[in-house]
């Protein structure tokens, strides 16, 4: 139980994610989480006036079950498999984040200043972030699971371009925009 409640090292995480991807392939499916956003649009009736959502979304119901499982997994982890889990991020990162106004860095799983404080700025950050994620994943045809794990494992070069894009976007955000967004 000790090892269950302690944080898991990266090689355990990476190995298990690969195992999940391979099991899904053996089940005749494809590991790609962001497809669920499209499925949800279709299930909400977007197919009536937009052909992109007019398809047999019910064939994707297995992925929605996977999504439900992910939510349950998060619940179990936070409530039964962890004891105040704090990621052991580097000291440089902690001091940098402290200077940016994130006092919870090094003391919490997520920045409470961002997610537990309901300011207009924070809500705008979540809304813009959500829009970029929903729009970007569908434009790029996949997210970290569909491209960085499934696509790269299948040695598909479009996935390499997509993952390069993910990193360019992430670097732009953290190095150019964060100094403007998070002014302490």
């Amino acid at each position, binding site marked *: 139980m000790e090892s269950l409640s302690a944080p898991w090292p*990266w090689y355990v995480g990476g190995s298990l994610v690969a195992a999940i991807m391979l099991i899904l392939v053996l089940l*005749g499916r494809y590991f790609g989480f962001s497809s669920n956003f499209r499925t949800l649009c279709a299930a909400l009736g977007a197919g009536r006036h937009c052909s992109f959502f007019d398809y047999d979304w019910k064939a994707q119901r297995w992925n929605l079950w996977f*999504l439900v499982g992910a939510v*349950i997994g998060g619940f179990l982890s936070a409530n039964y498999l962890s004891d105040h889990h704090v990621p052991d991020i580097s000291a440089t990162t902690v001091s940098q984040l402290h200077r940016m106004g994130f006092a919870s860095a090094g003391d919490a*799983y997520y920045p409470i200043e961002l997610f537990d404080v309901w300011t207009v700025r924070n809500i705008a950050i979540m809304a813009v972030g959500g829009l970029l*994620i929903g729009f970007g994943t569908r434009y*790029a045809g996949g997210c970290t699971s569909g491209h960085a794990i499934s*696509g790269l*494992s299948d040695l598909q070069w479009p996935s390499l371009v997509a993952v390069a894009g993910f990193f360019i976007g992430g670097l732009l955000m953290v190095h150019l925009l964060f100094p403007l967004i998070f002014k302490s």
Partner: protein
Amino acid sequence: MRYTLFILLGIVFGIVMYKAEAASWFRIYEMFSFQSFHMYGFIGTALVIGIVGLQIIKRRQVRDIDGRAITLPPKQKSLSRYLIGGIAFGMGWALVGACPGPIFVLLGSGLYAMLIVIAFAILGTYVYGIIRSKLPH
């Protein structure tokens, strides 16, 4: 019923993402700041096992559970859609500190602010569906 299998796999996925910290905003920030090997090791391990596993499945012509030949759908050839779409997603990933899977894992962990992210991600996907014919692909 097979759907219990997918729920079970999802539960394992959720626990792995949470416990190995791929669902932590701090870890994503640290990755994009090149201040730790953690996330690179995570993705790298998954890739090594994924590449070897898929090669074995393909070379041995393993069939899936229903007896069908295993073929992963090839991605459309394009540069602009992967680059522009990828950059948009990468910016959102860094801002929210979670990619689509972990967003739902965090919701389950009790981080209800993720409901806003999810609602707008569905809206973002809808916007893509509406304007996709005007975008370079």
